[in-house]
């Protein structure tokens, strides 16, 4: 792998906004992203497209959706490693499907718990993690980083699969809150903590700044990712739209259906980018153009 980011810094930086945060993520980085039903930093993803990021490698933890389809369609992505790419009820991810069928995108197909296992290995600082099942799937034949070994704890034949540790360059996601110490609140979306632990850098956009230290509040603390893992944060109100944020706002199904339709063609996708990515829909909302409604 060409790109290696510097060692983990200690202080969480507060950046001016989602575009500044996107500017800190270098071309060529392996970026770990959560699924659409988790907490996705959509405004920072739009920021990556606005800054015309290139050659990103996306890691789906464990699957990808709308954000990946946008990045792929916008030409930001060289490779995806994921268990699936889908828009859920809105159907297949049109730009992903087109890019694979045209041979324009490299893919490393996975299965959900192998992604989790690889990240858990990185979290613990060990080289691999075993997982049951999967043997006999064609996925194994195509993954040089998945190895089948004899279970060393057993005297009888017992093949078992190992997932190599996955250490992404960047974890990128959205949070409900950040506090001034740089702690972020992700609630029950603990896959975000896993990718933050495993990644070399972690970038987080957030809805609201919360006064006080969240780690000192026993009710909030279990949903907190401590600042020790957080490289930089930036405020992005409504920053997950058109995806949702826990109980704060739901997924905008009508918008996703509209996107799924528009992105069937390259021209439709280009128009979508003009309408909703260049410029920021947050700016458009300020001008009363209704981009968010």
């Amino acid at each position, binding site marked *: 792998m060409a790109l290696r980011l510097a060692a983990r810094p200690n202080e969480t930086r507060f950046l001016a906004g989602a575009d500044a945060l996107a500017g800190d993520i270098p071309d060529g980085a392996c970026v770990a992203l959560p699924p659409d039903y988790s907490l996705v930093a959509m405004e920072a993803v739009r920021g990556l497209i606005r800054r015309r990021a290139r050659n990103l490698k996306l890691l789906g933890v*464990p699957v990808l959706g709308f954000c990946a389809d946008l990045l792929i369609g916008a030409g930001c992505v060289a490779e995806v490693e994921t268990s699936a790419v889908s828009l*859920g009820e809105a159907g297949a991810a049109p730009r992903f499907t087109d890019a*694979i069928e*045209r041979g324009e995108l490299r893919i490393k197909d996975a*299965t*959900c718990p192998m992604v989790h296992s690889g990240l*858990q290995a990185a979290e613990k600082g060990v080289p691999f993690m075993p997982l049951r099942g999967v043997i006999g799937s064609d996925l194994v034949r195509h993954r040089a980083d998945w190895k089948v070994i004899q279970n060393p704890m057993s005297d009888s034949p017992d093949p078992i699969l190992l997932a190599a540790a996955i250490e992404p360059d960047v974890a990128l996601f959205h949070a409900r809150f950040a506090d001034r110490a740089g702690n972020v609140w992700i609630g029950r979306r603990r896959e975000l903590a896993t990718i933050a632990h495993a990644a070399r850098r972690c970038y987080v956009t957030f809805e609201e700044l919360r006064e006080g230290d969240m780690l000192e509040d026993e009710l909030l603390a279990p949903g907190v990712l401590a600042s020790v893992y957080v490289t930089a944060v930036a405020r992005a109100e409504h920053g997950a739209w058109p995806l949702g944020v826990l109980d704060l706002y739901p997924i905008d199904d009508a918008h996703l259906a509209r996107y799924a339709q528009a992105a069937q063609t390259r021209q439709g996708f280009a128009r979508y980018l003009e309408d909703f990515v260049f410029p920021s829909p947050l700016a458009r909302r300020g001008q009363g153009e209704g981009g968010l409604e």
Partner: protein
Amino acid sequence: MSWTTEEFLACTIARLIGDAQHVAVGAASPVPAAACTLLRAQNGGRPRLSLLHKRRGNPFTEGSRELFDLAGQGRIDVFFLGGAQIDGEANINLVGTGGYPNSEARFPGSFGSAFLYFAARRTILYREEHSRRVLVPRVDFISAPGWSPPGVWRRGGPQALVTGKAIFAWQPEMRRFRLESVHPRHTADEVREHTGFEYDAPARIGVTAEPAPEELALLRGPVAREIAANYPEFAARVWGASA
């Protein structure tokens, strides 16, 4: 009493689930979700149902890996899988057809199938489209294998394959499907004509039971309301229901 295909299939799958402690339902599976919700409405809230993509009140607090850890321990009795292709050895393909990695037709991907097909005690295969395009002699890509050789750890496997035309039971010793029953309005000859793989068929084949009025009342009432919260488009299409 008239019924829709979705209602019929939900009742059929509910009967196949039968006695179970814990059923998990994945993404894009509104019919299995409705089947399990129906069963719960009939049995005073049993079995436990974990909807993996539930929008509110997701059953897990350890993130998306928790389901797989739970399944690995044997805490999931019944799971559902589909397939862009399904073959006569119960192998499923969720990746693509016509070559790999640059498939001629690419599908979303394998999700957790390669693990859950082994770890869940029973898997019900469900695909409404019953055609030679879907039910093929051999899948182009094995996302998850239907059976495993001796010595390879495997807790569970396929129980049955449900389509819009029929139910096939899985025969683990023979690694082969057997036509169990044909749905009303369809025939055994039609099933043979539209199935691309070989299977066993008894001389006399039963008809899949129709939904009972009590089942339809539950589906159209409490089940429709509950399903609408997580599969809004499906509930609106089938029942005109909203959350």
